[in-house]
C-alpha cells in the first residue's frame, strides 16, 4: 500500500512578465520523505518552492495538500498548514537576540501574558545544544557568523511545528562540520515522519540525504529518480542536458613569481598575526571554518574591516593604517563578498550594479548609459548571467545568477589583486566551473587571486597554495599540487 502524499503539485506554470519560469511541473512529497530538487541556476527551483510556501499565489496548475486542492494565500497561511520555508537568503533579524530569533512571532508567555524570557532562553539553549551549537542565546544574532544564523533559522522553522520543511540551499553558507550536523538533524526529522524538500547544488550532499530527486531544467521537470537509481554524474548530465566539461584551463607556469601582495602581522579582534604573500600569477586559498576570521581578513584588505596593526603592501606600495574601499580599488584591489544581499542593489539594473565601482573611471561627472551597457555586457557574458539582459533588475535573477553579477563587476576593469570570498556559493555545477575558470585565467594573465572560502572543494580546485586559518590564527600552509584532498584540509582545522 502506498501512503497518500502530503502534498502534490500538478502541471504548475508560472510567468514573470515575459519569462516563463515554470512550465507544467509536477511534484509530490510523501510523509517522512526527503525529496531533493536540483537544477541549474535559474531553473526555477526557488520559484517552485515559493509557490509551495504561499509566497506566490498567482500560478496555473493544481496544488493538493493532504488530498485536497488548496490555494495558499500567504506564507503565514502555509505555516498554519504545517509548511515552513528556509529561504535561500536568510530572513533572520540580526539585531534581536538568538533566542528571540528562534521564537520569532511565537514567544512563550508567562501566565500573566508577558514574555517568558527564562523559558525562552532555556529552550533555545537546549535545542541549539541538541544540534551541537554552544552559543550564548542572549547575545544579538548579528554577533554570530552567517553559518550560525542559518542554523538558527533552520531551528526556528523546526520549532514552529512544520510537517513539511523546505530548505533552499541550506548548506551553502555552512562549514563542513556544520553540514554534517545538519545532515544528522535531517535524519532525526525523517524519523519523526516530517517531510523535507532539499534544494542544493552540492550533489554529493544530495545523494546522501535524499530518498528521491527531481531535476528541473529551464522551468520544466526532466525527471524524478529514486536515490538508488542514480549517481552524481548521471544527475549532472540531467541537470545540464549535456556532458559537462569539468576541467579548468590548465595552470601556466610563471617564470619568477614576483610578490604582489604582502601582509605582515595583521591584527584585529577577529584575527591575529596574519602573515601572507600572494605572488603575481598565483592563486592563494585562504581556508577556514565559518567563524575562523578568514572572511574578515578579506574585508580588511579592502579597507572594510578595522585593523589594530600590521602592514599591507601591494605591488611595493604600503597601504596606510586606515584606508577606504575606493582607495583600495584605485590601487587595484577588487573584493567580492560572500553575501550577495550586502553587495548588490537588488532593485537596480544589472549594468548599474556592474559599473558602480568603476563610475569614476567611466566618467568624471556624467556617466554615459550606452558606454556603461557596453562595458557591462561582455562581463555578463563572461560569467554567463542568465537571462543576459543588462537592463534587468538584479533582484529578478535567480540566486546563483546574482552571485555571477557580483563577480562580473570586477572583470570589467581587471584589478591587480582579486580578493573573493566564497566565489561559487550558490552556483550550479556548470557555473562553478565557469567562475573557477575565470579565476584561473586571471592567474594565468599574471594577476593575483586570493580565494577565501569555507568550501574545501573550491579552494582545492583553484589554489596553488593554501593557508588554513582557525580561530583567527594561521595554523598551516600547504602547496596544492593535486596531492591534497578534502579530509586532509579538514583535519588541519
Amino acid at each position, binding site marked *: 500500500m502506498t501512503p497518500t502524499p502530503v502534498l502534490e503539485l500538478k502541471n504548475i506554470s508560472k510567468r514573470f512578465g515575459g519569462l516563463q519560469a515554470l*512550465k507544467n511541473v509536477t511534484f509530490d512529497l510523501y510523509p517522512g520523505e526527503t525529496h531533493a530538487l536540483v537544477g541549474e541556476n535559474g531553473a526555477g527551483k526557488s520559484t517552485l518552492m515559493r509557490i509551495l510556501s504561499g*509566497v506566490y499565489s498567482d500560478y496555473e496548475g493544481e496544488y493538493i495538500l493532504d488530498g485536497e486542492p488548496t490555494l495558499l494565500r500567504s506564507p503565514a497561511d502555509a505555516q498554519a498548514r504545517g509548511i515552513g520555508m528556509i529561504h535561500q537568503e536568510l530572513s533572520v533579524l540580526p539585531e534581536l537576540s538568538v533566542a528571540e530569533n528562534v521564537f520569532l512571532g511565537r514567544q512563550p508567555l508567562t501566565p500573566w501574558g508577558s514574555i517568558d524570557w527564562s523559558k525562552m532562553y532555556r529552550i533555545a539553549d537546549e535545542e541549539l545544544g541538541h544540534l551541537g551549537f554552544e552559543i550564548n542565546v542572549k547575545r544579538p544574532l548579528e554577533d554570530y557568523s552567517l553559518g550560525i544564523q542559518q542554523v538558527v533559522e533552520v531551528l526556528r522553522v523546526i520549532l514552529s511545528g512544520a510537517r513539511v520543511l523546505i530548505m533552499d540551499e541550506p548548506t551553502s553558507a555552512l562549514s563542513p562540520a556544520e553540514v554534517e550536523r545538519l545532515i544528522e538533524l535531517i535524519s532525526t526529522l525523517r524519523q519523526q515522519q516530517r517531510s523535507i524538500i532539499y534544494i542544493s547544488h552540492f550533489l554529493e550532499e544530495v545523494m546522501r540525504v535524499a530518498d528521491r530527486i527531481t531535476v528541473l531544467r529551464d522551468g*520544466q521537470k526532466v525527471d524524478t529518480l529514486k536515490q538508488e537509481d542514480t549517481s552524481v554524474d548521471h544527475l549532472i548530465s540531467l541537470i545540464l542536458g549535456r556532458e559537462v566539461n569539468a576541467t579548468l584551463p590548465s595552470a601556466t607556469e610563471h617564470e619568477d613569481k614576483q610578490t604582489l601582495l604582502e601582509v605582515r602581522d595583521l591584527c584585529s579582534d577577529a584575527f591575529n598575526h596574519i602573515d601572507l604573500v600572494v605572488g603575481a600569477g598565483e592563486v592563494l586559498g585562504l581556508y577556514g571554518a565559518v567563524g575562523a576570521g578568514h572572511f574578515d581578513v578579506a574585508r580588511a584588505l579592502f579597507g572594510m574591516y578595522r585593523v589594530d596593526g600590521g602592514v599591507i603592501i601591494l605591488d611595493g606600495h604600503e597601504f596606510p593604517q586606515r584606508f577606504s574601499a575606493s582607495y583600495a580599488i584605485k590601487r587595484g584591489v577588487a573584493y567580492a563578498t560572500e553575501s550577495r544581499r550586502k553587495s548588490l542593489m537588488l532593485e537596480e539594473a544589472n549594468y548599474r550594479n556592474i559599473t558602480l565601482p568603476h563610475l569614476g573611471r567611466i566618467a568624471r561627472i556624467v556617466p554615459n548609459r550606452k558606454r556603461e551597457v557596453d562595458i557591462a555586457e561582455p562581463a555578463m557574458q563572461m560569467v554567463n548571467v542568465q537571462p543576459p539582459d543588462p537592463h534587468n533588475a538584479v533582484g529578478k535573477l535567480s540566486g546563483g545568477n546574482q552571485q555571477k553579477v557580483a563577480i562580473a563587476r570586477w572583470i570589467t576593469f581587471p584589478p591587480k589583486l582579486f580578493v573573493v570570498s566564497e566565489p561559487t556559493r550558490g552556483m550550479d555545477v556548470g557555473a562553478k566551473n565557469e567562475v573557477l575558470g575565470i579565476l584561473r585565467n586571471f592567474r594565468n594573465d599574471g594577476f593575483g587571486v586570493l580565494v577565501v572560502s569555507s568550501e574545501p572543494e573550491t579552494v582545492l580546485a583553484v589554489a596553488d597554495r593554501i593557508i588554513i586559518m582557525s580561530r583567527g590564527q594561521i595554523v598551516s600552509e600547504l602547496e596544492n599540487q593535486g596531492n591534497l584532498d578534502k579530509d586532509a584540509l579538514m583535519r588541519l582545522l
Partner: protein
Amino acid sequence: MTTQTEAVPGRTTQAPSTTEIWLRRARALAPLWTLLALGLFFSLASDTFLRPINLNNILVQVSTLALLGTGLTFVLLTGEIDLSIAAMVTFVGVVAAHLFANLEIPEPWPTLIALGAATLLGLVNGIATTKFRIPSFMATLAMSLIASGLAIWISQGRIIFEISEVSRFFGSGRVGDTGIRVLTVVAASALLVAFLVLRYTRFGRYVYMTGANKSAARLAGVNTDNITIAALVICGFTAGLAGLVNVGRLGSAQPQVINSFLIDAIGAVVLGGTALTGGRGGIIQTVFGLLIYGTLRNGLDNIPQIDPFAKEFITGVVLLFALVVNVVFSGRSSRDRT
C-alpha cells in the same frame, strides 16, 4: 493564458500583453492621476480656480515649498531625514535682515553670509549624522532647536521690518513685464538643476545607491559618508534659499518658526513617491507632490463655502487619502510578500 505549443523545449519568452503594459504605466503615474483628479474637482467646485491668475498663484505659493523639497529629496533619497529645514528658513531670514538692518552691512554680504550660514548648519547636520553616528532624525531635530534658538537670540525676539532690496527682489520681484515671479524662477531652476544632477551625474547615482543599500555602495567603493554629508549640505543650502525668498515675500523677518513648512515639505516629497527609506523617487516625483499640495491648499481657499477653520483638517484627510492611493496604486504594498 492559453498554453502554447512549441517545437523546441525550453524557456518561452513571451512579451507581456498590451493591457498589462498599460496597466503598469498607469500605476506608475498614480501621482499624475491624483493631481488631475484634484484639478478637475476644484475647477468644477469653484469658478475662480482655473483662472490664469490663480494658477500663477499656485506656483507662487508652492515656490518656497519647492526649494525646501528640492534639498529634502536629496536627503530622503540617501535614506536620511532633515527636520531642521523650517527652523533654517527662519534663521536665514533673521540673519540676513539683522546684518542688513541692524548692523548696516551692505548687500550682497547679508544675503551671502546668511546662505553660507545655512549651508554650514547643513554641514554640521551631515557630520553629526555620519562621523558621530547620531541618527539624522535626532541630529537635525537638535539642529532645528539650534537654528530657531539662534534666530530668536539674534533678533531678540523682535520682528525686523527693514529688509534689503535683494531680499525684496527674490520674494516679490517679477521677471520683466510678465507676471512670472522671480521666486518661481528661482524654485524652477533649483528643481531643474537638482533633476539633472540626480538623473545624469555620477554623484546623483551615488545618492540613489547610498539610500538603496548602504553596505553595497560601500563595497563598491562609494564613500557613503561623504554622499550623506553632501545631501544634508545641499538641503541646508536650499533651505537657505527658501529663507531668503520667504523674507522677501513677507517683507519682514519673523523670529517664529513656521512649522507647517516642515510638514508640508516632507508631505509633498513623500506624496510624490520618494520613499522615506531611501533609494527610490526623485525630482519628477517631488514636482508632482508639490503641485498636488499646491492645488489642494489653493483649491480649498477658492471654495467660499468651506469653513476656514476646517481647512487644516481637510488638508490632512486628503493628504492621508492621497498617500494611500499612491501606495496602493503603484502596487508597492502588495508586490513583495517574502
